[in-house]
Structures are given as C-alpha cells and as structure tokens.
C-alpha cells in the first residue's frame, strides 16, 4: 500500500515538473506584461516539433535540442512582443485576450495544415527505460525532464533576483509606472519576459519529446493545467506557479490511483477551488494586493 502511494507521488511529481515549465512562462508574462498568453500551449507544440525534426533529420537527441528550441522560441517571443503585443498594450483587456487567443488558433491550424494531424514520436535509448528500485520505478526520460525543468526554474529565479535586467523585470511587474520613472525601459523588459517565457515553453516541448507524442493539439493538453497552476500559485508568482504545478501533479496522480482514473481533473479543480476559498489570491498570496 505504502509502495503504491510513493509510486503515485513520484509519478505526480515528475509530470508536475513539465506543468511547471509551462505555467512559469504563463505567470511570468502575466506578472510582467500583464496579459494572459493563451497561445503558450502552442509554443510548447512548436518546441516539440523542433525537437522532432532535429531528431529525425539530424539524429539529435531531443534533450540536446533544447539548445536550439530555447533560442528559437526566445526570438519568436521577442518578435511576438514587438510586432503584436506592444500594439495592444494600454488598451483595455479585450484586444489583448483576442490577440493571444487568435495567435493560438492561427498556430494550431497552421500546424494542422502543414504538419497534418499525425502523431510523431521520437524513440531514444532511454525513452522506454526506467530505474527499478524495490517495487518502485522511475522512468529515465521523465526524470531527466524533471531535473532539467527544476534546473531551468532555478536559473530563472537566480536571474530575476541577481541581475539588473531581472530586477528591472520584477520592478516592472510590481509597479510599471514607478519602474518607468526609475529609468526602466518597459518595452525592452517586456520583450525579454516574452522571450524567456516562450523559451521555457520550448524547453518543455523538447523535454516532452522523448516520452510524449507530438501533434498539433498537444499544447491544449498541457496549457489547461498550466492555467490552473498559475491561479493556484498566485498570478504572477514564479515560485508559486512552480509549487502549485508540483502539487497539482501529485494531486492528479493520487486522485487517479485512489478515486478513479477519470477523476484526475476533478481532484485538481477541487484543489484549486478549496485553495481559492481559503486564500483568494492563491497559495503564495500575501496581503500584498
């Protein structure tokens, strides 16, 4: 019995790492630029296809192809900010919502047209292998993904807390007007925030590729969990999103194990609702707002 519980927690923790990469991107964009990026899942999908093509055309391991997918998506992020999001900032919320929503639909349908709805899988030597310890098992691919996801999140935290640009980003997220008065160029900060957020989505895509099939709708699967994690972990809070993602992964896994295999989302949303009832601004929500 204990073994089953531990295994369920391990499973949840490992998938929670992937949720974290997606949700940190969403929460970063929301915190800094104050818009909700509905297209985040589609950028995960792009990251997956980049890794897929590098793997099938050039034999590059999907994990290694992080070094391509992250910069490519960083640049896409900067371009999206510069040519699209910048134009609708300062207007009311609706154009911003429709912009990222339209972007999501556009990318999704372009992918359906150009790449077809087929599933694409990459097999690496570690794809279907696992460590077996006692009665427990830890799949290689997911462990690698989890470790790298935690590493990237840690690097982001260090960046936000030690570098000037990182501090400027946090300043802009706390109070945009005051930050501007202090000589921070918001457009530059926003572009970097978008770039980093999309690079994280790209990383999630590459890390998923060894154990999850790519297809045009794949982003939708992960983005729902990411949005829940963002709210659960307090909007705009990076550490909050990380912790919430891991908690959700574990809750989902335990729910499937002990309640029913179709209860995963029920458990996750119950967790969200009860948290919001007790702490209306999420797990990390202090008295700040």
């Amino acid at each position: 019995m204990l073994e089953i519980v531990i295994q369920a927690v391990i499973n949840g923790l490992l998938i929670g790492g992937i949720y974290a990469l997606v949700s940190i991107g969403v929460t970063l964009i929301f915190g800094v630029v104050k818009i909700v990026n509905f297209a985040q899942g589609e950028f995960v999908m792009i990251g997956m296809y980049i890794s897929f093509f590098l793997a099938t055309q050039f034999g590059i391991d999907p994990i290694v192809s992080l070094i391509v997918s992250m910069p490519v998506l960083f640049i896409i992020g900067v371009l999206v900010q510069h040519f699209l999001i910048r134009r609708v900032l300062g207007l009311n919320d609706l154009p911003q919502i429709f912009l990222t929503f339209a972007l999501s639909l556009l990318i999704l349908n372009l992918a359906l047209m150009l790449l077809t709805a087929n599933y694409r899988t990459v097999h690496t030597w570690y794809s279907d292998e696992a460590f077996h310890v006692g009665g427990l098992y830890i799949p290689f691919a997911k462990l690698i993904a989890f470790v790298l996801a935690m590493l990237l999140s840690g690097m982001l935290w260090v960046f936000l807390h030690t570098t000037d640009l990182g501090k400027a980003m946090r300043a802009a997220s706390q109070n945009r007007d005051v930050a501007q008065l202090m000589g921070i160029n918001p457009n530059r900060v926003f572009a970097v925030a978008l770039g980093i957020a999309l690079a994280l989505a790209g990383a999630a895509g590459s890390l998923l590729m060894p154990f999850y099939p790519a297809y045009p709708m794949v982003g939708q699967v992960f983005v729902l969990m990411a949005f829940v994690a963002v709210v659960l972990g307090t909007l705009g809070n990076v550490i909050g999103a990380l912790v919430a993602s891991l908690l959700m992964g574990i809750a989902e896994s335990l729910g499937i194990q002990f309640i029913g295999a179709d209860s995963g989302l029920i458990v996750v949303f119950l967790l969200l609702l009860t948290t919001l009832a007790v702490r209306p601004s999420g797990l990390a929500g202090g008295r700040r707002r």
Partner: protein
Amino acid sequence: MNKGKGRISSKLLRRRDFLTKATGGVVAAAAFGAVPLRGWAADPVNIGGLYPVTGSMAQIGQGCVAAAKLAVEMVNEAGGIKSLGGAKLNLILSDVQSDTTVTRTETDRLISGNKLSAVHGCFASALTLIASEVAERAKVPIITGSSSDMLNKGRTYTFTPFARASQFAKAQLQMAKLVGDSPKVAVIFENTAFGTSTSNGLKELAPAEGVEIVMFEPYSAGFTDASPLINKVKASGANALFSVSYLNDLILIVRTVKQVGLNVAINGGSGGFVIPDFYKNVGKLAEGLQGVAHWNHDMSDDAQKVNAEYKKRTGEFLFEYAGGLVAQTFMLADALERAASADPQKVRDALSALDVSKGYAAMAPGGKVKFGPDGKNIYGRPVGVQWQNGDLASIFPKEDARAPLMKS
C-alpha cells in the same frame, strides 16, 4: 437568383444564359478533346465518397481516399460496368472535415449537387451515422465499413458488409484465452460514448466467454501521463489488458507498460490500433500486441494483390478501413452490373440482393458477402490480428488465421 431584376430582363437573361452555356460547352469540348463526338462512350456512373481529409481524423481519411481512387481505377481498367456499355465509375470526393455538422452539409451538398448512384463513407461512426441519415432521406444507397450497430436500425439504404461493434467485443474476449486458460482482464476505456459503449459490451459478454474482469476503469481521454493508470492496472493483478482508447492515449499506455515492466498481454482493439501509424509511433514495443479488425490485407490472394499495389503508391500497408473500401467499391460495381442502371433506387435493390463469394467484392473475413434485411452482411465477422515484424498478421479465429500466434 435574379428575383430583383424583375420581368423585363428575363428574356435577355435567358439569351445571355444560353450564350454563356453554349460558349462554355464549346470551350469545354475543345479543351477535353471534343468529348461529344465520341457518342458511343457510355455516360460515367457517379459514386460519392465522404471522408475526413482534414481535422483530427484526417490520418485515416486520407488513406481511405487513396484506396477509393485505387478501387475505381481497378474497376475501370477491368472494363467498367459492362451492362451499361462499359461505363466508367466516376468518384466524386468530399471532405467532411472530421466534423459532424460539416458532414451533414457536405453529404447534402454532394447528393443534391450530383447525380449519384451510390455513396460510401465516412469510416468514423459518429460521422457515418449522420451521412447515412442524409443518404436515407435522399434515397441514395450508402455502403460503409463503419462498425456501429446503430447503422443497422431502421435503415433501408444503408449497407454494412463488415463485422459489427458487438461482434468485436466477443472476438476480443475469445482472444484473451489465446494467452492463458484463465485470463484476468483489466479493461480501461476513455469515458465518452466510444469507450463506454465498447467496454460495456465487453463487460456483458465476459461471463459467457469465461473471462474474468478484474478491473473496469474509465479514464478521461487526452491525459498527460499514463503512469497513474498503469500503476492501477499493476495493482489489480491482471494478466491481460484491454484498452479502448484513442491513438494518442494508447501510445502512452503501451510505452508506460514497458517502463513499469508490467507483463500483460495488451489487446488494443481496432481503429487507431490497426493502422500503420501505430507502429510508427510505438515501434518494437508493438510487437506481439493483439487487436481486432474488420478487414486485413493478408486474408486472401486478392487482398494481397490490392495491398501490394496500395503499398507501391503510399508506402504503407493497406489498413482495414482502406482495404474494406476497395471491396465495397467492387460490391457497388457488382450491384451496378446486375441493375444495368445508374438509378440509385435500382442500385439499392441490386445491393440488397448481393451474394458474392469470389473476386474483389468478396474480400471480407470469411470470404462471403450477402446482406440481410437490416443491411448487415449475414456472414460478417471480425478477424483477430497481431503486430508481427512491423506488419499486421491475422491470427484468429482459426479459419481466418494466416500466421501462428507470436507468444511474447
């Protein structure tokens, strides 16, 4: 369409209309090598084909279209419909976009916009049910490989030459006994109409077949991780796993079973499990996995011949829906031949009297096709298949087996 112009211009319009048509006709005749001069050529017989070639079901739909074209070519090259003066079959395709609403409008458009003798489509049951409703109302016969038992209720223009969903469940249970004498089966199924109806069929028939179901678990399709579910299967002590799943989930399930190191015989059912794409995604892990199909390319010499040609064109083996579709086209040709008419009503009557046991039209498990009053092939039965060396081999029942069972 010219309501707004009033009466005065109607004559003028008629003249203009005449001129456009006449010129168009001349231009067309010139462009296509003066077709009207060849007065002896019989009018082609129009056959409609409804398949999703875009959207989420596009994978299988595109294979169906390739097979439908191949089948029509085969009929035409063999001399067309002789009783109609060697009339050629003319396939008119329509994309139903994996969407039920589009299926309704497209079927309507296809039937009302063309003089069709018959229709075939759409492979997915949800779409076929709608297309068949529209065809019934328009009194145009529809022939389909779709397995839903609903297609055999209260319909007179719908013909289903292959095994029904209810027969699939029975075959799957019987196959469980190939692996061991006392199979303990875990049934996991996605929790919408497709999964629940199929799994309930399994549950109902299990006691009569002497199969014990130790786990019966719905899950929500499109999960991010199959590990918790497989963890549960492991705890149930099952030695066989029936998964009623869409392709995406099935890929994750098969890979996770391997990671866990769980020793269960997996039966993946039909649909997404028996198409080349499954093997492409799962690779060697697919070896030895079992499923059920309404058609398989190793059934007969005829089937293998068609398979070779299809493989040459597409690079992949002829999967169940596409293969069944070639047989269906020949059934239509047989009916047209006997009807000696392109009239849809006469074609329907000829189809209902169809009785074949040789040739391409008889490519079905059992090798015989004859429709009962409900449009069901009275000889219809599914075939049990197994992935062997990247190919699907028929292994069950004994009379349809073309390869020995591979024990894993």
